[in-house]
């Protein structure tokens, strides 16, 4: 091997194991999604019907176009519901295993908390907390590395967006204390 070759190995110790039991099947997921879409189609369809789906002297009323779209969406969801209920084998494949779900939640929950924190503390503080916390708690990376990375990334973002490109982000009490 020549000197210019460099080997890259990345391990993933917390990878979801292959034999983890499935939480729910694809069929169940299909059915639930179809029902949700059907409910959405009915709600939107009703609202458009209220707005007016007929024709007046200026042409179609505002609800006309979306009303028929909700009818199409509803019909396709009903078809999907039927297809999911009638299907036999393929649909019984797992939608997500327990180990996978745990990992997905390990990203989703922090992201949700980040959005919540952005609302009250401003985006930059929330971003520092998310990156630092995620690297330390989920990635098990050394504390100083996590905090340093979080600080640097947040600082770069602040300079790039708020200072150079003039794209203003939501701010909270900390920025207010510094006069931004």
């Amino acid at each position, binding site marked *: 091997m020549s000197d210019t070759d460099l080997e890259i190995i990345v391990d*993933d110790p917390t990878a979801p194991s292959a034999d983890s039991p499935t939480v729910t099947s694809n069929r169940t997921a299909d059915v639930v999604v179809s029902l949700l879409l059907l409910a959405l189609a009915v709600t939107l369809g009703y609202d458009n019907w209220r707005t007016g789906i007929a024709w007046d002297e200026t042409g179609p*009323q505002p*609800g006309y176009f979306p009303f028929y779209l909700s009818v199409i969406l509803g019909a396709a969801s009903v078809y999907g519901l039927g297809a999911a209920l009638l299907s036999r084998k393929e649909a019984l494949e797992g939608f997500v295993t327990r180990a996978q779900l745990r990992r997905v939640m390990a*990203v989703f929950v922090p992201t949700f908390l980040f959005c919540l924190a952005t609302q009250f503390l401003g985006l930059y503080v929330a971003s520092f907390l998310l990156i630092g916390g*995620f690297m330390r708690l989920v990635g098990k990376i050394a504390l100083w590395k996590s905090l340093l990375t979080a600080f640097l990334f947040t600082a770069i973002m602040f300079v790039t967006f708020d200072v150079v490109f003039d*794209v203003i982000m939501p701010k909270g009490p900390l920025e207010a204390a510094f006069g931004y």
Partner: protein
Amino acid sequence: MEAFGLLLHGFAVLLTWKTLALMMVGLVLGIFVGVLPGLGGPNGVAILLPLTFTMDPTSAIVMLSCIYWGALFGGAITSILFNIPGEAWSVATTFDGYPMAQQGRAAEALTAAFTSSFIGSLVAVLLITFLAPLISSFALKFGPPEFFAVYLLTFCSFVGLGREAKHKTVISMSLGLLLAGIGMDTVSGQLRMTFGSGELLRGINFLVAVIGLFGISEILLTMEERLALRGHAAAISLRVVLSVWKELPRYWVTLLRSSVIGCWLGITPGGAIAASFMGYNLAKRFAKEPESFGKGRIEGVFAPETAAHASGTSALLPMLALGIPGSGTAAILLGGLMVWGLNPGPLLFVEHKDFVWGLIASMYLGNVVGLVLVLSTVPIFASILRVPFAAVAPMIVVSCAIGAYAIQNAMFDIWLMLLFGVVGYVFKKIGIPLAPLTLALVLGSRAEDAFRLSMIGAGGDIKVFWSNYLVGSITTLAIVLLFWPLIDKAFARLRELGRPAKRAG
């Protein structure tokens, strides 16, 4: 050669230090995004779009399209070195690219991939240069009925020609069109589907939805998989590059075939994924020894890469000429045009010459610069993969949030992004395609306006869509494409009926 003169003008627009610097920044960011797991072309462009909000449109589109070229190049690095296709259209590249890397011919495979991507895009850009102005000047004669017919054709061909279950494509599309209708109705000024919410008054922004659908959902999906990887990052020496290039003319048939397939599938919404597989399979079928494919044959890298890039680039043709994007990324670029205050469609070629020709010129230049850049910096980019995903994932989340917020300065949009992230995750898992939803969201209000204007013009007579040969044939073609699977089946049955009779006779 009017196009040639205008192209030169485009280069003149482009050759300023500022634009060239932005181009380099775009390419580097793009390769970065393409190499990182869980991010690719559409996500990268969507996340980085807010950076361009304060730029002038020409600089903005140059930077964004360079991010896209960069991402296309970057995807090949991970597929060849680590057997991890960064994008669905890089899957076919791994078939022969990874075996080559294992045999210690990584540099050769990478050179082949980058060179053929370059050739593929070049063919597509040539097509755009000469065809797009013709189509757009033809489309200038279009009225609302013709435009609606073209939109209908786009939607119908997605349903009829898509590989996914038909009802799922229909769900995705009608959902996108419905979401596009939320908010103030542009014709009557009335509110629709807002349910009294002040936040929904603005409507659902296309880019917010895209950032959620592609950015957030992709992170969730990536976490499900095992993220371990192992491979060598080989530096590419000039000697290898030259030896591969010397071989190139021998494969001209493969390159040409793949380019044509790519261009065709890029303009029609078949997409780069189908193009790369088709390019690979056809190269295999026409080869003298098909069994040597999959064991590290350089042709197996040339074929899919050329097709994927030709298709990815030519997807911009209908976007420029007609205002109809041919791919998810093109749809996002189209969303960008609207943010910068440009009205996509055939008038673009008349009203914003600098912009259009600057973009086309940047396709040429961006591909040349990109080729040189990736060839010289592969090891640096490959080592990005050493950065743990636990550090990359939260940074991507923050970038997505910044992007979503910046579009309308609304906290509500960050929540909306999160919701679309979950929707995108679930949809991908149960096989509801996201591309039709994206397309419908971006085209929805324009399609509706075209429909209503033609209806008002015709006094509510649906026959307006068959009122002349042009609009009539487009509408009819749309309906044929919508029912294409059924028609195809009917033909197959007829043929089967014919066959035993022949045998008997």
